[in-house]
């Protein structure tokens, strides 16, 4: 190793440490989280400070909630008309993204961020144990992972290895459409107009946190999502695939990294994983 290499390593170590360096508002965060832990220690269920960004409700719960929302929306509208129409659109949009039980939901979203194409593709059981496999990241270079309900797997194409570790929490139903689905079900979506993108006529539905969903006017399928970024920019994701697959043996194999890469070497993580998972 040369002196130049040694210097590079020191710079690298410095930069790595800087990524995790303390920040001015850490003390505020420390106090906030401590207050929440103290609140949780009182005789009541533990509440998380930050709402999960992705819905964890089951499809059945979502549909039930949606029915309530729809009735409430229509019922409070004295004159009918546009509000009822909006409620109907939301209802149809929700139905279009609510999967049936005992299927495999296959989704793919594609977007461009900072000039780079990013892709997220998932396959997931629509009923417990919600086994899933996903590929996310830069197009052609995404990370691949799966979870069968008790064990999670991550595939490394460079070394052709699969990292296996016990899961710490039961899998949830969390495909790329989860946030949209949950907000629709909660009645947090509003129809703000119609637009034409790529020749398709779409309903534009505004959701909390600046998220926008675009649903086809003919069949209510989700076609695009606008995902706002912290810097004020918006990344538009095209829904390239949204389909339900039957639970055939071939399709089941789509849920498993080990089935997709049968020749990969499996590396089991440390014993600490078992202790942490409690399984």
């Amino acid at each position, binding site marked *: 190793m040369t002196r130049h290499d040694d210097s590079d390593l020191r710079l690298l170590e410095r930069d790595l440490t800087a*990524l*995790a360096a303390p920040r001015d508002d850490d003390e505020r965060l420390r106090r906030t989280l401590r207050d929440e832990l103290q609140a949780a220690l009182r005789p009541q269920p533990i509440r998380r400070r930050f709402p999960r960004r992705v819905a964890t409700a089951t499809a059945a719960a979502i549909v039930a909630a949606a029915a309530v929302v729809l009735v409430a929306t229509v019922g409070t509208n004295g004159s009918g008309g546009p509000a009822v129409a909006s409620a109907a659109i939301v209802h149809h949009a929700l139905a279009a993204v609510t999967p049936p039980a005992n299927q495999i939901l296959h989704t793919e979203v594609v977007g461009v961020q900072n000039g780079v194409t990013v892709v997220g593709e998932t396959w997931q059981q629509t009923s417990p144990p919600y086994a899933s496999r996903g590929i996310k990241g830069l197009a052609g270079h995404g990370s691949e992972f799966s979870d069968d309900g008790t064990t999670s797997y991550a595939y490394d194409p460079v070394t052709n290895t699969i990292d296996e570790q016990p899961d710490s929490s039961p899998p949830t139903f*969390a495909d790329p459409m989860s946030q949209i689905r949950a907000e629709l079900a909660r009645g947090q979506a509003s129809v703000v107009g119609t637009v034409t993108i790529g020749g398709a006529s779409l309903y534009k539905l505004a959701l909390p946190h600046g998220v926008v969903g675009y649903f086809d006017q003919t069949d209510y399928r989700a076609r695009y999502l606008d995902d706002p970024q912290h810097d004020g920019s918006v990344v538009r994701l095209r829904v390239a695939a949204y389909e339900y697959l039957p639970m055939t043996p071939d399709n089941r194999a789509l849920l498993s990294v080990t089935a997709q890469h049968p020749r990969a070497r499996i590396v089991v993580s440390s014993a*600490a994983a078992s*202790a942490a998972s409690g399984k």
Partner: protein
Amino acid sequence: MNANALADAHPVQAGRVDADAELVAAARTNPREFLALYERYFDRVLGYARLRIRDPATCEDVTSRVFTTALEQIHRFRGEGSFAAWLFQIARNTVRDAQRQRPTEPLAEDRPATDPTPEESVLERERARHLHALIRLLRPEQQHLLALRYGAGLPYEEIGLMLGSAPATVRVRMHRILEELRLRYSDDQA
């Protein structure tokens, strides 16, 4: 190679493992005692999250989830390994879950923070973004190891205890990870 350069950047107090055992026992008897463990590990868990996740809000979310999960699960911790090993395994799983819950990974992690931070006064924003992206190219086990060392600031001896490996073995593994990262980092800087 000078992998020891930051060996004492975040020194762990002598006898801490024993102190953890006492606090864990106290927390299992009286959950309010868990707050002492929280105070002891808050900085390290937050640092761990920051090394693996770029988005500040997600780092805070992960840190919150790690401690609420640990509080919920503390009765299940049997003490077969160290509390730190158990806690950072929860952190590892929580980071993994967070990384999977967004439609596409870069949207969640590569976006710049709104406000300037001390980190960005040292590292240019673009370099930090590149470094995070390169870390994500490592295997999950490698990312975990890197975050234990440079995020949580744990010494090799403690990481070795966590992983059931000799400190020398951890050093060798870390050396390989840094070399792999350095080559990619150098290419990007060139």
